[in-house]
């Protein structure tokens, strides 16, 4: 029989206000095996942990139950406290009487009753706990960064600077990401390329960094410290080792009608192309859809003009398999599709553009060479209207429920830059709220209004109607003056909501990392572990986790790097001891368990057993505890009940069921 101590936490008033903690103590003390029960203000505090330690020693406890917050919060805290007092950490169970009880119930009697039952279930379980010992697994001292935008680049640089090998996998032909498409950055208005390109060069030149552009992650297996990843290097049809980046091929390419991805489809590019002048690597790729040689077999001009002989039409996709200890996801974002927002006439008029498209228009390397002009007729606009929250903060299913966070600031930036460069252009911004939390942000916005005379109107735009003369009629409402507004504009700019890169779902699935309903990757804890995925060894950098501006992205990228470095710095990891184990006397050797094991952790051995005096050689399942992650699929597949999960055994779970249903 166990000697169990029960510790009921008040959590200040978080628990104690709704749960009668004294009653829980009183009731718990009556349960079989319980020899000690007490309550305290904050069990997780040093004093609380000292109480646990003292009781373990004085009462010779063999198991403890802490009735407190979620085990996801403090299970490790209490396991640590137990271990320091000489108790096996796996002899600790948590009854979650905060998140699952006091916080959701109002009635004290009802909440107390439930807390008692939850305590009872945990006590019933701990009665059947057995001491467990973690195993060890190795750490491959190499990190993978998925995504080569500013988040990925910063994370890779920080990890590499700490002395670890890093590979960046980038889907497009160049690193740089969204930031490379921006013209200026708020609130300091420095040129995006001027601050980004040195980082790109640094990453490319770093001896610890390997960059795989035009590549995608194909397959991920393994677990923290020991991931195996297949990377598909798509054929560029240009030998990167030979190419000098002279650009002649792009000049001479006769197929020049493909829309430029980099310029958001506002102009065209050749079939053999580098996305932009500062691309890294400065090695073009051939777009097989557009290439005449690929389509018809005739042409081959790029190959003929290439003095380095780098063009190779026979190049094949290549799979690179590499091992990693840590994986950082930095897959970034895109703007949402505007198909649901027909009222803004985005698909009808060339002069209705997204803010990201405006970035390209304003950029000297963009489709208009940096001149502000209408894309329909090249005329200089006089009236510009910005519409905020297009698809953000949306109550229905048309758009996104969240605030995209960056739009208010970049719109202030656009408005200011336009007014600065073209004082003859009137700028009007329709907004729901202007949100400017951030260092020097509100000052920046006020400058736009006060110094640059940008006309901010609180209210939404109902419709943008293209006029026969090419103008755009904007129908809006001014909520402060409570009046309808009809405004003729030459250009309309939509502050389009951002969303996680659509590829992230596939990647999250491969990594078994959780994703929320908006496809943002979920962090392990919203406050305390914001850059870690709940999947051990997977870290989050940048907008893949939630909307962010550049400084926040860079800060998070550094934080993700530090977490990855912390992992890579270890030589060995302790493995979860809650692994499956086969009872060799019950095992039939039928292989059913191995069929459902996602880790290939189960093998079979011909083993001599002594079954109550009968000695025979039997085929028996053996679990490799270093590979087993403890899901328990095998335990249910096993027809004889031979396979059980340590820490979550059949008997333990049934004891909980019984305690709850009692």
């Amino acid at each position: 029989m166990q000697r169990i101590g029960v510790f009921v936490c008040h959590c200040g008033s978080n628990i104690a206000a709704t749960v009668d903690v004294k009653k829980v103590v009183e009731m718990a003390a009556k349960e079989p095996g319980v020899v000690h029960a007490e309550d305290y203000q904050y069990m997780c505090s040093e004093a609380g942990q000292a109480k646990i330690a003292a009781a373990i020693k004085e009462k010779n406890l063999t198991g403890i139950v802490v009735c407190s917050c979620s085990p996801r919060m403090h299970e490790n805290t209490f396991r640590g406290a137990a271990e320091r007092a000489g108790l096996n950490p796996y002899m600790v169970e948590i009854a979650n009487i905060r998140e699952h009880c006091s916080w959701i119930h109002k009635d004290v009697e009802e909440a107390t009753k439930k807390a008692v039952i939850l305590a009872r279930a945990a006590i019933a379980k701990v009665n059947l706990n057995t001491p467990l010992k973690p195993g060890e697994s190795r750490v491959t001292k190499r990190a993978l960064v998925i995504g080569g935008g500013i988040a990925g680049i910063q994370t890779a640089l920080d990890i590499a600077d700490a002395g670890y090998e890093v590979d960046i996998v980038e889907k497009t032909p160049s690193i740089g990401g969204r930031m490379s498409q921006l013209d200026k950055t708020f609130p300091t208005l420095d040129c995006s390329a001027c601050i980004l390109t040195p980082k790109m060069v640094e990453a490319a030149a770093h001896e610890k960094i390997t960059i795989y552009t035009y590549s995608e992650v194909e397959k991920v297996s393994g677990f923290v410290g020991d991931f195996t990843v297949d990377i598909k290097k798509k054929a560029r049809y240009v030998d990167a080792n030979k190419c000098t980046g002279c650009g002649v091929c792009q000049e001479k390419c006769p197929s020049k009608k493909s829309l430029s991805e980099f310029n958001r489809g506002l102009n065209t590019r050749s079939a053999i192309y580098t996305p932009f002048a500062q691309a890294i690597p400065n090695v073009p790729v051939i777009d097989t859809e557009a290439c005449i040689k690929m389509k018809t077999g005739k042409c081959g001009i790029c190959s003929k003009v290439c003095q380095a002989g780098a063009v190779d039409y026979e190049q094949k996709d290549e799979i690179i398999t590499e091992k990693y200890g840590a994986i950082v996801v930095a897959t970034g974002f895109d703007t949402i599709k505007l198909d649901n927002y027909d009222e803004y006439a985005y698909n009808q008029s060339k002069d209705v553009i997204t803010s990201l498209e405006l970035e390209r228009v304003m950029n000297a390397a963009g489709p208009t060479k940096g001149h502000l002009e209408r894309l329909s007729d090249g005329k200089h606009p006089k009236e510009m209207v910005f519409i905020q929250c297009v698809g953000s903060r949306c109550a229905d299913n048309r758009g996104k429920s969240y605030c995209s966070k960056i739009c208010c600031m970049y719109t202030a930036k656009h408005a200011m830059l336009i007014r600065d460069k073209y004082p003859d252009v009137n700028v009007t911004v329709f907004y729901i709220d202007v949100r400017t939390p951030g260092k020097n942000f509100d000052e920046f916005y006020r400058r736009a209004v006060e110094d640059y005379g940008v006309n901010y109107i609180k209210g939404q735009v109902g419709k943008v109607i293209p006029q026969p003369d090419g103008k755009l009629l904007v129908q809006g409402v001014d909520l402060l003056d409570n009046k309808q507004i009809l405004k003729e504009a030459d250009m309309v700019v939509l502050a389009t909501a951002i969303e996680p890169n659509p590829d992230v779902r596939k990647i999250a699935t491969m990594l078994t990392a959780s994703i929320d309903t908006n496809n943002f990757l979920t962090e392990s804890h919203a406050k305390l572990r914001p850059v870690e995925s709940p999947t051990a060894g997977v870290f989050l950098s940048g907008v893949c986790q939630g909307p962010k501006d550049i400084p926040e992205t860079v800060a998070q990228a550094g934080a993700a790097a530090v977490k990855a470095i912390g992992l890579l710095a270890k030589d060995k990891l302790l493995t979860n001891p809650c692994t499956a184990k086969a009872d060799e006397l019950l095992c039939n050797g039928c292989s059913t368990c191995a069929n459902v094991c996602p880790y290939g952790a189960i093998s079979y051995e011909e083993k001599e057993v002594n079954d109550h005096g009968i000695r025979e050689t039997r085929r028996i399942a053996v679990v490799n505890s270093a590979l087993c992650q403890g899901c328990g699929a095998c335990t249910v597949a096993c027809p004889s009940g031979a396979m059980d999960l340590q820490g979550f055994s059949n008997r333990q779970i049934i004891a909980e069921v019984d305690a709850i249903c009692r």
Partner: protein
Amino acid sequence: MQELINRAKELLESGEVARVLGWKAGDLPYNPEPAYFEKAEDLKDFVYNGFCGANLSKYMIEASKLEGKTMVCLKPCDTYSFNQLIKEHRVDREKAYIVGVGCKGKLDIEKAKKLGIKGIESVSGAEMTDDCDTLTFQTIYGEKSVAYADVMLERCHVCKGKEHQVYDEIIGESKDTKDAERFAEVEKIEAMSPEEKFAYFQSELSKCIRCNACRNVCPACSCRKCVFDSTKFDSAQKANVDSFEEKMFHVIRAFHVAGRCTDCGECSRVCPQGIPLHLFNRKFIKDINEFYGEYQAGEDTDSRAPLTNYTFEDVEPSIVTERG
């Protein structure tokens, strides 16, 4: 039958097999029982006729551990069970010399009794060489003839076919005796109201005396130690016969063999209380076929069983409510 005995004798005498697993006559003309024959002269007791319903594949689990090969007589439907046992590494194919024996449908003496046939002294028309169209009973009240099909086991009415799935040689002819829809009975129950369903199963299962005959005969119930006999699923030590498993026995048993049950029908055949236990297993088979595609356990030895497989598009459990 003589051909079978001759061949068995040959195999034993040549030393190719160490024993023969077949049937020997029982104390009544209609209850032969499974038996081992280790010497040629013992084969005089060997019988094989329409009453040899027992599926011998499960015996091969123990026989696989013995020295030398065992000649085992398997009917076409028994071979599914044998394949399933190979798949689960419970029998050793190398230790078995499989004689696929012909089958023209096996008999259920209870059905004869229900037809009013009593005081049976002998039966004719159920030998391997017979056509198995008519069955004639010599009784103390005189001779009685009935249509063979009227006395057939339930499972033979939904016969899986006359092909042996695994064998070394085949002796005797087989006949596909299927004359009913396999899932007709299940569908009948599915169409009932929840109250009717419950009443039906409660009345059937209330007859259960927990004799374990179903479990012991079932080739899928091949565990060294059954979960019902271990303490693995009880929070306390096994308390008494009133435990949870006792009450849920048949549902749990059916779930344990789901996707592995070949629908051999032995459970229903041996139930002394006449509970139609196959209706549980067949329900699972029907669901598996409908939800995950046709699957016949024991048709092969390497396919993935439905419960150890999945597709992304699998139906959600809510289908049960949605289909009404």
